[in-house]
Every structure is written in structure tokens, then in C-alpha cells.
């Protein structure tokens, strides 16, 4: 069985200042269900079905994307802190002007022909995924009263079982917009919220002088087999 979630450490369903949540989050309370074999299994070797997509979003040489080069060092672990090797992770974010490679993005910021906005990676034995990219910019949210999203990186992660699925966003330290963002602040517990902000690793020299950010993604579940003494 997986431990139940603590609602304080998770986002609220409806969020003031984010109108769509009031159209889309269910009005009825979520139903508690028993955990059976069906929820406690999940797709294995997902990488074979989905394949990997790029491992470098920043490009090289004359084809280098604009923006501050960064190196994201992200570890996927379970609730025991044990690495989840083979975890599939999808990453996407906007460019250094705040524009996504997506037809639905109406922001008039310029596209960057050398920036690739999406990667799918597979965690190694230590649960580590590494991604070279550029730091995304802030951007305004259309049809809102001055809401700007702080720079952030989207993650979609598969853990060991169906109930371990995690979709979240990673934020950057020291960004003034972090304090006003309805999405980040939908997590009530301040410590849980601060864990959604990456750590700048000033001493760790990244490849090609990229700034290194470290981050940890904790998926639901305990380690499958406790180690023997």
C-alpha cells in the first residue's frame, strides 16, 4: 500500500486568481478508494514504448539557443529517498523570451529557431537525469489582471506504479515573481512549497560553464524490497 497524501503538501483544487480551476476542478469531494493490484502496478519499461526525445535543449555552436545556459541535475527518488532507476521524465519549458513552441501560445514574444522546448529522458541507476538547456523567462498570462508566470520548468514523471504518476513545475530561486504565483502558492505548506524551487549549485561547474541547478522529484511509493542487514 502507498501512504495516503497529506493535502497540506499538495495543491488546492481551486485557486483564487486562476479562473480555469473553478471550471475544471470537481465540485464533489474526491472518493477514497481501496488500493488494489490495479492501482499498485503500472507500465514498466515505458521508455521502450515512448522512446526518448532529445537530451539537450540548448543547441550548439552557431545553433545555440539564446539565453543563460543552465544544467539541470534532477534526481527521481521515492518516499524512502531511494532512487528510481529507469523512471521516464518529460521536460518542457519556454524560451529565454517567454515563448513556448506551441500553437496555443499567443504571447507575442519571439520564437528562437535554435531552442527545442521538449525532452524525454530516462533516469540512470542513481535516479539522475541531466539536461542542458537555457533558463526560461517569465511571461504574462493572457486574460488575467497582471499575472506573470515566474520562470519555471515543467516535469512529467512516472514512478514505479500507476499511483506514482507526478506532473509538476520546478521554479528558480530568488525570483520575485515566485511569491505572487497562484500555482506555486497553491501548495499551502511553506516547506513543501520551497521544495518546488531548485537549488543553485554554485560550486559545481557544469559542462560548458552552464549554471548548475539541482532538483529532486519525489514520487509516491516506498522502496520495493527493504535491504537486508
Amino acid at each position, binding site marked *: 500500500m502507498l501512504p495516503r497524501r497529506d493535502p497540506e*503538501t499538495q495543491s488546492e483544487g481551486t485557486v483564487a486568481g486562476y479562473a480555469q480551476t473553478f471550471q*475544471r476542478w470537481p*465540485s464533489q469531494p474526491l472518493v477514497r478508494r481501496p488500493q488494489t493490484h*490495479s492501482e499498485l502496478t503500472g507500465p514498466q519499461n515505458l521508455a521502450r514504448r515512448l522512446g526518448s526525445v532529445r537530451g539537450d535543449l540548448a543547441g550548439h555552436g552557431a545553433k545555440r539557443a539564446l539565453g543563460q545556459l543552465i544544467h539541470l541535475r534532477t534526481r527521481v527518488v521515492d518516499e524512502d*529517498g531511494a532512487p528510481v532507476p529507469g523512471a521516464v521524465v518529460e521536460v518542457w519549458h519556454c524560451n529565454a523570451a517567454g515563448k513556448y513552441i506551441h500553437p496555443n501560445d499567443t504571447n507575442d514574444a519571439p520564437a528562437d529557431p535554435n531552442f527545442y522546448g521538449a525532452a524525454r529522458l530516462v533516469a540512470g541507476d542513481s535516479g539522475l537525469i541531466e539536461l542542458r538547456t537555457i533558463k526560461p523567462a517569465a511571461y504574462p498570462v493572457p486574460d488575467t489582471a497582471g499575472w506573470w508566470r515566474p520562470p519555471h520548468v515543467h516535469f512529467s514523471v512516472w514512478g514505479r506504479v500507476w499511483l506514482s504518476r507526478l506532473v509538476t513545475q520546478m521554479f528558480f530561486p530568488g525570483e520575485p515573481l515566485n511569491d505572487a504565483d497562484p500555482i506555486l502558492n497553491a501548495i499551502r505548506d511553506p516547506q513543501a512549497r520551497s521544495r*518546488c524551487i531548485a537549488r543553485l549549485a554554485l560550486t559545481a561547474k557544469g559542462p560548458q560553464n552552464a549554471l548548475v541547478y539541482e532538483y529532486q522529484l519525489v514520487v509516491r511509493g516506498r522502496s520495493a524490497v527493504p535491504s537486508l542487514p
Partner: protein
Amino acid sequence: MTRLVPTGEMTLGPFFPREFAEGANDLAAGVRETEVIEITGRITQLDGKALDNVIVEIWQADSQGRYDNAEFYGWGRAASDANGVYRFRTVKPGSYDGRAPHINFLLLYSGLMRQLQTVMFFEPAKDPVLDAVPASARPRLVAKREGAVYRFDIRLRGDGETPFFDD
């Protein structure tokens, strides 16, 4: 041992890369099964508007009720189209261990702060997950059959709201 708290979930946002959502909604491709079914439905929000590009992921057993069949990969992903309609091709799962045939659904979308989990059943049945839902709402988790097509509409909020699960 220190317990770590699972990372807080956040919305998928409106710009989930299209390429991620493509090519994973046919679970029956290459499967030697005689009975291939289609599962389709329309996803709407409170004001009745159909939702474009909702990401729907499913997890199901094979026709014998097994989750570890190397010949059948029980996971799939689809995106709803401009009419709010998603589609999967798959096989009907078998029952096992007290569970009626069912397919687990997971929805990800802009404006959904966390993933929404629901379950599709093929007929009214005795099942511990279906039984956890108030009796009046159970029919909303049972797909409507039209030949080889099972229709499973999802209403996120409002009249006829689909029951969603917390676990």
C-alpha cells in the same frame, strides 16, 4: 529511515508538447486478440464547453485480467481534439481477484492543479472501487456500449459530474 514527502503536483499548463501526446492511443496494435474495442468520450467543464488537448492516460489489465503480460502493454495516452473527444483502441480487460473489468483513467490539463483519477467500468458490477462511490453516481462510471465502441464521457465539474478518486 526518513520519510520524504511526495513533490507537490501542479497543473500541466496549456503548452504540453503535442509530440508527447501522439502515437500512444492504440493498445491493440500488433496484439493477437479477436475482440478489439474502441473507447471514446467527450470531456467537458462546468459551463459545458468541450475541452481541447486534455491529456488522458489509461492503465488496464489484458483480456485475462493480467497486468504483467509482455505481449500486451496495458498503458496508453491520448489527447482530446478540438471537439473535446479522445479515443483509444484496445482490448476489453478481464476480471481478477474481486475486481470487475475496468480501466483506470488519469486526466492532466491546464486548470487542473492535480491529476484527476477516475475509472471506467463496462457494466454495473460488484467491485470495491465502484462500491466506494455513492450509489446515485455509480452509473456515471459505466460506459455506454454501441457495438464495439464504448462511450465514456467525462464531466469535470457541474451537472452529471464524473466521480473522481483520491488515493
